[in-house]
């Protein structure tokens, strides 16, 4: 019987190699898989390329991974926010690389990778500096730029409910990039708040089908990045 459950977050991330490309789900704090990220900090893989909408907040979660010197490149749409300090400091010192991608293009590049579509045309960035160097083509008199798919070795994802096959549901706007990243990574690792038996999720309500998921760890009472920041916490 297929059972994708892993005993711990540490076991689930133990084989992530140096230099891996890692997608991390979440939009700001909502949907951020904090326990998996902290396990990756403990694990210590370095030279990572990380794909996320942002660059983390405070000194926990993604910001702590960056602050620990494990990330050599960020691919994101919005690398700064009122509470993001770690990434901006490293970036200004030239110690971390940045690829800025418009949010919708970022989502579609990830989706395309999961769907086996190597590139697509979008009107987003036409006429701006972010279109420089990109192939352009007109369709029906309108200009579009060519954007390549975006794949990853690993995806770290937080779900609300998972079953042993990896079928997932999410909670409200914590869904964001997660279903796309599950499709686009070679190995998708999920921390779930609730782990249920087969049949515990109505097939009509499955958001991410289990075929896109490889490993599941139950984290019944996940911490929230905003709560940690409000408490002034840092990691490790």
């Amino acid at each position, binding site marked *: 019987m297929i059972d994708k459950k892993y005993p711990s977050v540490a076991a689930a991330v133990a084989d992530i190699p140096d230099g891996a490309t890692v997608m991390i789900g979440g939009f700001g704090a909502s949907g951020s898989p904090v326990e998996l990220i902290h396990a990756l900090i403990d694990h210590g893989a370095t030279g990572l390329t990380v794909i996320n909408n942002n660059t983390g907040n405070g000194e926990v979660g993604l910001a702590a991974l960056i602050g620990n010197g494990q990330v050599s490149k960020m691919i994101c749409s*919005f690398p700064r926010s009122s509470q993001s300090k770690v990434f901006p400091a490293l970036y200004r010192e030239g110690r971390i690389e940045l690829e800025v991608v418009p949010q919708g293009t970022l*989502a579609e590049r990830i989706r395309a990778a999961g769907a086996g579509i190597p590139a697509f045309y979008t*009107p987003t960035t036409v006429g701006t500096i972010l279109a420089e160097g990109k192939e352009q083509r007109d369709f029906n008199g309108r200009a579009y730029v060519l954007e390549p798919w975006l794949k990853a070795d690993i995806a770290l994802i937080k779900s609300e409910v998972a079953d042993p096959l990896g079928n997932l549901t999410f909670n409200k706007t914590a*869904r964001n990039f997660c279903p796309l990243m599950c499709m686009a990574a070679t190995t998708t690792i999920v921390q779930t708040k609730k782990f249920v038996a087969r049949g515990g999720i109505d097939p009509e309500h499955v958001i991410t089908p289990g075929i896109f998921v490889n490993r599941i760890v139950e984290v019944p009472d996940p911490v929230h990045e905003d709560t940690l920041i409000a408490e002034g916490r840092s990691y490790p």
Partner: protein
Amino acid sequence: MSTGWTREQMAARAAQDIPDGSYVNLGIGIPELVTRFVPAGREFIYHTENGMLGMGPPPEEAERDLDLMNAGKKYVTALPGAAYFHHADSFSMIRGGHIDVCVLGTMQVAANGDIANWSTGAPGAIPAVGGAMDLVQGVKRIYVITQHTTKTGEPKLVETCSYPLTGPGVVSRIFTNLAVVDVTPDGFRVAELAPGVTFEEVQQNTGAPVLPPN
């Protein structure tokens, strides 16, 4: 110089130009105030690009759901009939032309409808685009709400944007503290003056020729 419209009045004036039943995406800042001034008898459905239609007002602190945020990463609520979806669906709504109106703040708008609202392009500035470039290319109608000038008095309505563009030729109407200004094939044209504001004042505070109201 007269004061013209307040931030709230600018938002209220913009709300007047959004048709009943519109799917609306609001930028951060003054555009967020539009929700307070929906004209009687109209319903707007708010889209937030991080994955919800039917976004409601901010919750009381005790009612906060940490997994329910808007694109500005502020806590919000979901109205009855709301829907959640992932980012590719959310930007299909934007890029696919399904969102009717987007109201944005800006640093500059040019007389040809170019908008620059994502980066100053200054050395050392960290570029952060978010969903702005997708919104301006995909949403059917792009409105801008902005003070007419910067805090130091520089025009924000200009002949050519000096900051890097978010998108070319996309803005249709601008709501400022001084006037409602349309982007036309002939450049800026005043559609309406704020109370107590003269056409000459608008021209003096604009970095490009302005046509008088029709």
